[in-house]
């Protein structure tokens, strides 16, 4: 089990204990974290699971592939720490991960 934390734009905090192996998007969906729609079901093709990853964790993630890069690139609210949470696989290494949810997905 690892702990991941989603912080809504409003400031509401969701601390979640989860098994590893599923994507961060799935963790959010399974725990009813608001602001993650995941319309494409994890296919990296709708960009409705956008998160801002806390800077302490950025270098622990593998960089976005071309498709994720394309989908993020269309968003004018993209930041350097923007990622699609369906592309982040939870692992022991990410125990303690903190991500912020963007206002535009609220």
């Amino acid at each position, binding site marked *: 089990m690892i702990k991941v934390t989603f912080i809504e734009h409003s400031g509401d905090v969701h601390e979640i204990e989860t098994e590893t192996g599923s994507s961060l998007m799935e963790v959010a969906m399974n725990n009813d974290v608001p602001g993650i729609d995941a319309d494409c*079901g994890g296919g990296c*093709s709708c*960009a409705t699971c956008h998160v801002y990853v806390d800077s302490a964790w950025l270098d622990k993630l593998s960089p976005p592939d071309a498709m994720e890069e394309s989908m993020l690139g*269309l968003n004018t609210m993209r930041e350097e720490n923007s990622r699609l949470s369906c592309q982040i696989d939870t692992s022991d290494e990410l125990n303690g991960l903190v991500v912020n949810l963007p206002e535009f997905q609220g």
Partner: protein
Amino acid sequence: MSTAVDNTSSGERDIHDPYAYELDEIDVSLDERFEKNTFEGFFERLRKEDPVHYCAESENGPYWSVTRFEDIMKVDTSHGIFSSEGGITIAEGQADFELPMFIAMDQPKHDEQRRVANPVVGPMNLKEMEPIIRTRVQTILDSLPVGETFNWVDKVSIELTTQMLATLFDFPFEDRAKLTRWSDVATAALGTGIIDTEEERQAELIECLTYFTELWNQRVNEPPRGDLISMLCHGKATKNMDPMEYLGNLVLLIVGGNDTTRNSLTGGVLALNENPAEYDKLRADTSVIPNMVSEIIRWQTPLAHMRRIALEDTILNGKHIKKGDKVVMWYVSGNRDESVIADAEKFIIDRAKARNHLSFGFGIHRCMGNKLAEMQINIAWEEIMKRFKNIEVVGEPVRIRSAFVKGYSELPVRLEAW
């Protein structure tokens, strides 16, 4: 059942019967089947027997039909293999009247232009638009004649979406009917009562360009503001567009922001009438509305397809697609694919995972205005349910003769207040 027949090849047969054809003769792109609402059986057959289907001869030349959800996802998200450049409908544009628009471009130009237009439907604008939309919906609904038969399409769906579009463009409000007209003209099949020739279409679209060029010239000399015209004429990637490119992007935004929401607003009324138990569910608990909106958009699938051109030889679900082949993704079929969507043929307003539908497309061309569309339809149903116990469909809907824009020109209804 219609008695229309096709006697061009193998004698008389019912063109609306999917089993009146050999598999390789099936051409799902006939506009007439969309008008008569008989297309579904053809897609059902293809999903079962030949999910990636080649049609060697059609009015629009040879083309592949992709009919299953997963295969459509694959094509839609493989923009390096399946190109949008030059057009996104099965019908070819006119070579002498090409309308470049970002939906019909590949990377990187697509991304550059889309990013300019994107903020108009961004979260800040949506928040500002919410109360405006609500007030307009209220005004429109309060003006409707309770207890009399009227056309829902004209009085509600068109009126509401056209007002919204006028707001997005900051278009002179009194002239807003022009937007509806240009939207219809841009997509109409010839001879269906809107226009009869390509020349007529071009003439009216040039009028559209002339009108919008005036708006451009006003706004380019004013400080930038939040409407679409101002964004385009001040945006780095769009400020030097030539006139046809400007027209192309206008048509994209007019059609994209108009026909689609319009037909979902009508489709929802029809779906609830065809499924009275669902209507009862809605009356019992209106908190289901956001979920219902996604289900309406899936059920209606306001754009039946999008087309691509293969940039290289590739294999899709076992079929060899050649470089240059036309590939049509039938969203209208994928949204009924039982292998991904349980009870796909049923309209279920509290369906689980209702957002997981194809109507907005996926990948870099995914609908830009989807949040605005959902918001409009949401507000419409919230305000409808406050006022009317029943919107009763009292006659047959008249459907549009088009394999692209899947919608209605008439839906006779009668309202009953609470």
